[in-house]
């Protein structure tokens, strides 16, 4: 007796579907009941949300394919403009029933065109009597498109007057989507995170054909024991499982242990997995490098991770410019006199710092500062005399673009008082110009 009951579909199909979607039975059955029978009108829009790899895309795809429902599956990240998105949907729709895989290209610029072409296409494809599903994966991207796209899709059923349901798949909640006007509330469905038991079940489900399910399940158990505290992403875990499985099997292959000797196998693999957690999982070294290490049975010690190369060598003045920028952005301007002048006079500490300045400046983040302050600090921290050459000025700009962290050349500085710069605009590198928004007419007229 299958979990899912539905008069429309044969029992065998439903059983197959059940085996395909472990741990997502309740969601699937509620979806099934929402969908109803083929010719029934369904909700105009369904909104499904849940964390990364909680099976949204997979469940939707399996469901629609197993039940052979007419559907269009589009990833919104791929279609970065609304035009691309609409055209993609139409093209997919074309190729639904017809054999030719790639239908002819339909130009579609506005939502209005889309509705018209969509209606035409439904008639051509003879789909009037069935619900057509449009699944928009990664629907977060819709928020960045034109304002009419999201409400348009929400009301697609109403506007086209056809039997169509739009399904949104998203990682964020509906409240963050809701447009101000013209919004039709969709039916929302939540996919909760997989629990550790679920993960165990799903991961063990796909065991390699050479080994028994029990053997693999034991392995998964060890793996989850190590990784579950840091990572609950199913995809990542599956990847890690595949990477380290050969190492786990080694004693068995060499004949030193049999498949049931879990203790010995555990001893063999545990330290290895911990090492993997420090390196591969953080992408310090790549998985192919990890595999090579496993094959050679070598120590990963000789392979330096990405963070080992963190040391950056800079030219002499660039170094000091960076330090100067750091000092200027974190120290209040009032303290400059005290820090950089030799005879600054005594200042009482209690009066010197205002109350709000007693909190660490690092917590408050870098602050904007004028360029001449930066240069003044530079001149005072470099031992010998610094000639104010173009090479140094041009680096003031790159300081901002290259090493964004300590050095924030503020944008207002480049505006009105930009005259201080004394720096011909055209000798700045192009990237710098792009970053320094210049709305002074003087700059636009004179320097470019």
């Amino acid at each position: 007796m299958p979990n899912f009951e539905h008069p429309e579909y044969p029992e065998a199909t439903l059983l197959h579907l059940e085996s395909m979607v472990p741990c997502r039975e309740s969601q699937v059955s509620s979806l099934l009941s929402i969908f109803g029978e083929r010719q029934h009108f369904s909700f105009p829009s369904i909104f499904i949300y849940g964390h990364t790899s909680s099976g949204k895309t997979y469940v939707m795809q399996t469901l629609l394919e197993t039940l052979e429902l007419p559907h269009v599956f589009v990833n919104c990240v791929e279609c970065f403009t609304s035009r691309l998105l609409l055209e993609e949907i139409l093209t997919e729709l074309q190729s639904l029933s017809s054999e030719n895989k790639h239908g002819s290209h339909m130009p579609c610029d506005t939502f209005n065109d889309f509705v018209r072409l969509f209606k035409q296409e439904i008639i051509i494809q003879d789909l009037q009597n069935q619900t057509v599903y449009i699944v928009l994966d990664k629907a977060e991207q819709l928020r960045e498109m034109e304002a009419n796209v999201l409400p348009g899709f929400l009301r697609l059923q109403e506007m086209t007057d056809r039997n169509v349901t739009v399904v949104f798949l998203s990682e964020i909640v509906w409240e963050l989507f809701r447009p101000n006007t013209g919004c039709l509330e969709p039916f929302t469905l939540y996919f909760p995170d997989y629990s550790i038991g679920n993960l165990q079940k799903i991961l063990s489900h796909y065991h390699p054909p050479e080994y028994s399910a029990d053997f693999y399940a034991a392995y998964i158990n060890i793996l989850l024991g190590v990784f579950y505290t840091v990572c609950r992403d199913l995809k990542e875990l599956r990847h890690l499982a595949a990477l380290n499985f050969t190492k786990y099997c080694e004693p068995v292959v060499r004949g030193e242990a049999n498949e049931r000797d879990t203790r010995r196998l555990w001893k063999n693999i545990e330290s290895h997995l911990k090492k993997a957690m420090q390196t591969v999982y953080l992408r310090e070294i790549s998985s192919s490098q990890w595999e090579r290490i496993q094959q050679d049975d070598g120590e990963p010690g000789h392979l330096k991770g990405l963070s080992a190369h963190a040391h950056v060598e800079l030219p002499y003045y660039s170094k000091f410019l960076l330090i100067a920028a750091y000092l200027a952005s974190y120290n209040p301007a009032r303290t400059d006199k005290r820090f950089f002048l030799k005879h600054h006079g005594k200042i009482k500490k209690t009066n010197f710092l205002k109350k709000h300045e007693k909190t660490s400046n690092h917590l408050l983040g870098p602050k904007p500062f004028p360029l001449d302050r930066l240069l003044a600090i530079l001149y005072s921290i470099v031992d010998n005399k610094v000639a104010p050459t173009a090479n140094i000025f041009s680096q003031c700009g790159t300081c901002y673009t290259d090493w964004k962290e300590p050095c924030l050349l503020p944008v207002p500085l480049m505006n009105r008082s930009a005259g201080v710069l004394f720096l011909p605009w055209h000798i700045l590198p192009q990237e710098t110009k792009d970053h320094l928004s210049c709305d002074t007419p003087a700059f636009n007229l004179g320097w470019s």
Partner: protein
Amino acid sequence: MSTSSVSKGCFVFKPSSKKRRISSSKADYFSQGKNDSEDSGLRFASCQLLWKQINSETEKIQEELNKQLFDNLIRFLRQSHSEFQTKTTEWMCRMKSSEIPTAALVLGVNVTDHDVTFKSLSEVLQDNVTPYVVSLQAKECPGIKHLLQKLMGQLMDCYVDADSSEEEECVNISQKKIRCSMASLSKWYENVTKKTGSETPSKKRTSSSRHWQSPPVVVIFKDMEIISSQHIHEFPLVLIFGIATSPMIIHRLLPHSVSSLLCIELFQSLSCKEHLATVIDKLLLTTQFPFKLSEKVLQVLINIFLYHDFSVQNFIKGFQLSIVEHFYSQPLSVLCCQLLEAKKRVTSLSHNQCENIRSLPSFRRYVESQVSEKQIALLTEDSFLKEVTQTLLEDLHIYHENYFTVLRCLHVFTTSLPKYPLGKQIRELHCACLGKSVWETEEYESAIQLLRMLAKDELVAILQKCAEIFISPSGKQFSNTVEKLEEFLARFQNLEGKHVTYCQILSVEFRSVPSVEELSFSYIPCCSFRSYLAPAEMQTLNEVVYFNTANTLREHLNAAPRIALHTALNNPYCYLKNQTLKSDVGCISNTAPDICIVYKLHLECGRLINLVDWLEAFSTVVTAVEGTDPEAVATDQVDEIIHARFIRAVSELELLGFIKPSKQKTDHVARLTWGGC
């Protein structure tokens, strides 16, 4: 110019083609203002030739240095998609999430050099791995749309190149304004592979090499990689990131969800300092090229490198500039070529050129050291002068040959000393030797002091290295020395006791306390070291091959815009070279351009400048020129034209960033510079 239009408006007049200046060839610029007796044509030709040789040499160096890096990269690329080729459908492949192979190329902060590296990299890839190489730059792709457009564009072009028979089809696609999406990219790839016959492993690799420095790239990347991961099975893609700073930036810029889709391998290029050392070694410390840099010039170039940009390309450009400058400004540079050719050229020198030789300071010194009959002959007879010049040139050549060999020897000694009193790099030693007699310096003294403390085995190793240098082709004239050195070494080895220092050995050998000189080079007895490492300035005719106007170079390469601007406004004669502009410092000349007058007046003001006062001062200065009409001044009515000129000058000053309108007082402007605000 007039138009036939009745309405008022702006009209564009294109310059008629007749008026366009006939562009003169580069060689003409070279001879400008000089008469031809100074062989400008020949100088230009030899300059071109020399630069061509040097350029090819630098390219060769670059290629050799990058070879290992590129080999590693190519191996990585070949491996990365072997799975794709074999189309394995094992369990492993299914389970692993599809990662995009990514090479992270850490290139260092010298961004200007990267272009060359990337260019040669994509050439190498095109030759060895795949015809499909796309190179993208961060600044060219502000958004994902541009990125894909660029990518498709470059790919389609490649495709046309690779298979011209299908050109038509391609043109069709591009005319349709290709729908730039990942889907179409993948479709396109399917087409290509189908057409080229599915049997052949038509690998496809997109290498997106990009300079990755500016934060906005992140957005592009984020999307880019999410997309790519889905198509990876149909579409083998390899990314190559160029990283200027630290590889950690990948993690900082990309969220974990994206970086987990990348299979990143790190490749480190050679550091720019090593690159520079090789370039100096191959270009400067060799007799292969006749052209040499003097100490100051070399110092300027090295300083720009170390203090400002770390860019080897800029160093080479500076070197090129000094070559051009040398051949342009020094008439005798015509003799700056290979020795045989130079000797030939000497015989055909004109009388003017002979006079040029006579006026060289180093030649004058030489003449003064000769006996009086010879002095007269040298100063009066051209033919005798030419003969002497030939021998002098030969001497100079031999000097260089010996100099570089001995310099390398000395460098072997000094690098083994603690604290490096004479510098760690050979370039520092070279600079020291070029400038003055190195043996008179304090650093040299301390180096010798330290040398005495060396243990025997260290010393033997150094001496063996020296012997190697002398044996190498560049040191062939030292064969005599080598024999003696080896004999000496053999005697060293026979000495008993491991911890004998150099000093003790020598005192055993010589049974007396040797002088500093003997100590250092007694093992090269016939080699009088002083004569070999004498500074180049002491050599006769050194002006022919040495470029020493460091100032020109500094002005060109390390410009100071503030100072230049101030000079231009304060002393317009400096740039305009108009005799009437010559004036004393402090007084304001009325012949100067308006902006200079306004500038000088503004220097006398405080933070806020009253425009009315300023205008009055301006008009007083200006009318002093025409100043014959005292009544006009008395009427207190400023002439309209002067008023307009004043306004224009002030707005020019505002444009240059000296003043800005003030909100405190409406008829005032605020000063921005020179302690104004």
